[in-house]
């Protein structure tokens, strides 16, 4: 089973380029001109965004025991 994760952004690294939103299969990330937003209920824990980020601003944290 895929480990359930939460995506966390390092805002000091993030350029709000929108790449993560573009590759997300489920629209679980939205990037506005001033903020990065994550929607846990849509996330399928695929980690594509984490790998794609050109600067490594995203990390995955386990969600275990929180729900």
């Amino acid at each position, binding site marked *: 089973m895929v480990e359930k994760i939460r995506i966390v952004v390092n805002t000091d690294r993030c*350029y709000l380029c929108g*790449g993560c939103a573009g590759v997300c299969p489920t*629209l679980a990330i939205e*990037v506005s001109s001033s903020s990065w937003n994550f929607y846990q209920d849509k996330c399928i824990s695929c980690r594509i965004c984490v790998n794609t980020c050109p600067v490594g601003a995203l990390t995955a944290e386990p969600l275990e025991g929180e729900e």
Partner: protein
Amino acid sequence: MKGMKYDVVVVGAGIAGPIIARNVARKGYSVILIDKKWAIGTPKQCAEGISVKVFEKYGIPYDRRFINREVYGAKLYSPSGYELEMRYKDVSGVILERKVFDKMLAYYAAKAGADVLARTEAVDVIRRDGRVAGIKAKHEDEPVEIYADVIVAADGVESTIARKAGINTYAPPHEFDSSYEYEMLIEGYDPDLIHLWFGNEVAPRGYVWVFPKDEDRANVGIGINSDNPQTAKYYLDKWLGENRIPAKKILEVNVGVVPVGGFVKELVKDNVLVVGDAARQVNPMHGGGMGEAMEAGTIASEWIIQALEEENITLLQNYAREWWEKEGGRLEKILKVRKITEKLTDEDLDLFIQLLSGADAEKIAGGNYFEVIKALLKNPKVLMSPRRMKLLRQLL
């Protein structure tokens, strides 16, 4: 809540959006162009190189305010340092200033009669009677409802509007490149050419580029496969370090993701069109998408105008048909070539760059590569390698 009504709403003032807004406004239809950026064109996500032919072709003034430098060709470098130069007598391309260029494209749209609203983010689509009736947007913190007969999603690689309108724009992670770029001072590279470095250690699946904006100033960037465990930044900094290029005079850092692995199939759904990066209309070989966005925007605007004139929204489907006929086929072939070049080892790259002449490279760049491949297939170093034979034959 502010409510507005237009014939056409265009989301995204990059390349395709303003061209559509301009063309449609010129025919007297009401159109609004919105962009989430508070300064259209800023920040850029681009190496800024484009063919000199596009200005005449798409009716864009050749305005020095957004042309940093004219270039006369390209120089390619193999992993072991073999070089291949293509130098033309005449200007072949220009390095733009996208911040000015995009803003001027929006200005041309506004002058033609379009309304333009920066700092206005499309949040969702408005649905009425089972179809998309407009866009819910936000200007600063003020909600805005824009109703329109035709909705254009030109909102870039992170496009949400097309997806919210029910168009499937999804592509797997391998179909994107991650990019990182410095605009910086750099010396020692002929500023009349663009420079490209290839190699599986240098830039997996992509390349490093130096696009000169001045004698000593350039966009220095990289694109790599986005599912690579390392970041694009890591590879660019590694390349600069290994080549002992001081990265001490950095004027800008640019970041982005480029769709390089195929094109959105459904370009139109009822009254919603998707264009440019949002439709993944990018050259899969070099990752450039400005020319492709201009072409798609031109085709789209012709059919939007036709649909409005004849009050027949089904005519919009012709944009999809015509794009696939004119552009889709051509780009699918380029995609096939790219997928084959992805399999080349560093030794292959060294060999091919050694064997090719500037004239060969020009033919390849022009899409005329059959003769060149046939000549390569006769070379002893190719003949002795069944794997190389097989790769090259796949291109024929």
